[in-house]
């Protein structure tokens, strides 16, 4: 089997040695904040206060208070600070700053998304003029087709993000109600809970109602494609919101699908123009394209740092930030550029200082598969408890090609193909679909490139695209001498696998297969399965 050199951290970590001790089962949150030494605790606390201020600024707006009491899912946002703490276990120095910088920016972005939803919502803000310039899109969708529109005039509302995706990050039980609603309606319990929950929210009529039109996408899987029908029925037939289905080919590596995908992008743009009355602006598009390329370069640089013995930007923060930037932003917002460079500067500094974030790095792991890692602290826990460094995850291994960013007649045609390519290669589907090579071969190539000896394979039991290759992963990992650690879960339904049930699969593997003892035994069992 492949092995990597064990690296022992020569520097004793400041503050808390055993963060597992601060969990409190009764409180459903930690008993107290983690002590990280004076400097880092103060920094961490200042960021905690910043989050409180973000939430405070949100809730002082009267319509947001109204929305808070109208929508069941809003309750999740009471637990934002606690949610953020899940992703900083044991972190110090640059990694702590990276996690806060990236996550806090995402949280601010989501807060703004909620505020936008409430402003246009027919039941809450009912700002009709604003709503008439809003375009609703799916949660797990690229918004490349909005890159050429003025974001101050045409508002892209990823309505499902605050309602389902983000709310679930902060409260693990949040979507259970919607899953139950969907299953009462008749959808079986074996489909992916994410689109099922979204369908459930629609059935429960618990989405904000706004927008002059909506664009749906067959984003990641059959479930996501099919859930759209139920959501569109309510949007179109009940609320009179015209809905366009943006078809995105699955076999995205085949050149013979690109022109079709480009035609679909053109149609989506024409649809938005028709319903918003705004025009596509090529200057705006190419400026956004430059930002997309810049983000790509930053992401590649971060992965290069992670391929060294001293990774800096890792875990859920890395994938969630990429997810937001790559898909939800797609170069439209210049603020992301500043954050990208700030994060890269922090990572470079940490790398120069050879900064480590656990007592030992025993293994280097690629995290593959469809992941619940925003709902659980798994990746940081994996590092602190077992010394397994999560180098990169499937959701962060996205496009590395540059797109045309100079405005020329030829590039205007190329732009449709570029948008189509990005759209086809949106997060998750770029590996779960498109043939087995992008799922299997890409993984082994990544293991080689990142010098990984282990794969932590998230086995989302309702993701048929992943589980359909279970045996092949086993066999090919064996051939390559890679340790493959299966961790089953059911994405956002903690009734199927609790947090500890998820961790226990790692504990069992590390003890029985790897015959190792935990770096920090206080973390092996954490009483947080009932926590928010």
């Amino acid at each position: 089997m492949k092995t990597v050199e064990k690296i022992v951290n020569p520097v004793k970590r400041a503050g808390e040695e055993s963060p597992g001790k601060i969990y409190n089962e009764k409180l459903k949150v930690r008993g107290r904040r983690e002590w990280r030494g004076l400097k880092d605790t103060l920094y961490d606390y200042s960021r905690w206060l910043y989050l409180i201020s973000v939430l405070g600024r949100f809730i002082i707006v009267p319509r947001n208070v109204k929305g808070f009491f109208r929508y069941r899912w809003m309750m999740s946002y009471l637990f934002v600070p606690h949610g953020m703490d899940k992703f900083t276990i044991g972190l110090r120095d640059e990694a702590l700053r990276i996690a806060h910088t990236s996550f806090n920016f995402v949280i601010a972005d989501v807060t703004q998304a909620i505020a936008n939803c409430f402003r246009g919502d027919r039941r809450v803000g009912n700002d009709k003029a604003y709503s008439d310039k809003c375009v609703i899109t799916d949660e797990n969708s690229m918004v490349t087709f909005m890159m050429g529109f003025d974001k101050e005039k045409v508002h892209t509302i990823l309505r499902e993000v605050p309602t389902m995706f983000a709310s679930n990050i902060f409260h693990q039980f949040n979507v259970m109600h919607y899953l139950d609603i969907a299953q009462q309606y008749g959808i079986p319990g074996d489909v992916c809970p994410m689109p099922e929950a979204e369908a459930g929210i629609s059935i429960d009529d618990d989405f904000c109602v706004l927008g002059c039109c909506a664009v749906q996408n067959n984003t990641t899987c059959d479930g996501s494609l099919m859930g759209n029908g139920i959501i569109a029925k309510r949007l179109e037939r009940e609320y009179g919101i015209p809905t366009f289905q943006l078809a995105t080919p699955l076999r995205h590596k085949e050149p013979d699908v690109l022109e079709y995908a480009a035609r679909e992008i053109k149609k989506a743009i024409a649809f938005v123009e028709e319903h918003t009355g705004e025009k596509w602006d090529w200057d705006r598009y190419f400026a956004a394209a430059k930002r997309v390329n810049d983000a790509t370069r930053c992401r590649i640089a971060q992965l290069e740092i992670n391929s060294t013995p001293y990774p800096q930007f890792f875990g859920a923060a890395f994938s969630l930030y990429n997810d937001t930037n790559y898909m939800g932003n797609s170069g439209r917002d210049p603020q992301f550029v500043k954050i990208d460079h700030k994060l890269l500067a922090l990572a470079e500094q940490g790398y120069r200082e050879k900064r480590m974030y656990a007592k030992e790095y025993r293994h280097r792991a690629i995290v593959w598969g469809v992941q619940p890692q925003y709902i659980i602290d798994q990746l940081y826990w994996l590092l602190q408890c077992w010394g397994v460094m999560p180098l990169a995850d499937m959701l962060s291994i996205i496009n590395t090609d540059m797109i045309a960013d100079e405005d020329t007649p030829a590039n205007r045609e190329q732009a449709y193909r570029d948008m189509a390519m990005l759209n086809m290669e949106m997060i998750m589907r770029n590996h779960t679909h498109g043939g087995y090579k992008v799922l299997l071969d890409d993984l082994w190539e990544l293991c080689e490139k990142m010098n990984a000896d282990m794969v932590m394979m998230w086995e989302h039991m309702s993701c048929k695209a992943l589980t359909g290759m279970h045996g092949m992963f086993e066999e090919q990992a064996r051939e390559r001498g890679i340790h493959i650690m299966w961790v089953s879960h059911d994405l956002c339904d903690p009734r199927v696998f609790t947090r500890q049930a998820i961790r226990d699969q790692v504990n069992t593997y590390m003890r029985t297969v790897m015959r190792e003892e935990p770096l920090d035994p206080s973390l092996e069992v954490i009483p947080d399965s009932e926590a928010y």
Partner: protein
Amino acid sequence: MRDLKHLNYFEKLLQEANNALITQAKKDGKVCVAYTCENVPEPLLNLDGAFSVRLTAPNTGSMDIATYYMTNLLCEPSRALLERAIEGGFNFADCVITPDGCTMMNRAVENMELLKTMGKDNPRFFHEYMEIAFKNTESDVELAVLQCTNHILTPLHEKYGIDVSDEAIRKAVAEHNKLCRLVRAIGEFRKGDKPRITGYEFHVLCLATYVCPSYLVLDKLEETLEELKTREPEEKPWRARVLLVGSEMDDSGFVKLVEECGAFVCCDRFCFGSYPGRVEIELTDDEDALTQVCRHYIQHCQCPRMMNQEKVYGRKQYVAELAKEYGADGIIYEQVKFCDPWAYERTLGSAMLSNDYGYPVLSVDRPYNIASSVGQMRTRVQAFVESIEIKKIQKGGRA
């Protein structure tokens, strides 16, 4: 009713994936093109010198090895096919053409390819995967033409020298239409109060046209059609007439079970059934045959993966129209367990056919081989039949 002369013959053909007619066609020197999805245009696989076979796994029992490769969370048809492939049950195939229609079936075939389950002694053997349309626009037709060219016609021509000219496609379509006319004509005998063919018998005949070389079943189908014209129907009326809608139905035992409960399956609308799979393709001389074939498949497609709203609502309307045409009292929406596309389609279809069109609907999931769950399913269907009867009594006639 008196037994159909060739029913037993057709039933036997369905007992094995590698049936006697496949062997005969291979002896005739023809190339066997295996496929797994109704979205593949069948006439393009039946060009002169080739014949199509839809892969099935009759009498499936254990799926242990396939379950190792794909876990028990994938739909049973995909696992059953992989198991059969690993057992060597599909060694007759000279190529496999698979659209990325549903993820699970696609993964099943990818596993077959990776495990090299077929084509060991055939250096010309190939696997091809196709993108298929999501909507019914001309842009999708264009996509389908390109996909069929690149993933069906070109490899068949290059590997096996099959004539893929416009003329050859028109000839294949003509033969396909002959088959469709026969199947549909036989299916017409399901209409009326005293049907001359049962849903089970029809299902056996129809399924055989997919899993056997079609040119070898034509004569028996013609004879059956003639026989039906004079066949005496049962005097005893059925308790209810139901339309069966859902995912692929390789198991005639399911139809038999429904009919044993007193519900006559008067019409079928599932993958590889007669609607829409046995609807004739109309060709004109104004346009090349390939484009017209692709357009036909896209416009008539009732697959749940078609995502534009015209198609989403159109599918329910199509079911309602069939129910009306065939005089169905109720509708059974069925889904193979773990099938994602039909999980949602069944839910929305059941709700809309019941709420918007006023039909009693039974919504069930089922195993691939009904033999493993007869009792439960029988109870569900019996209760449904009784509920239809009660509704009839309450309304003084029709449900």
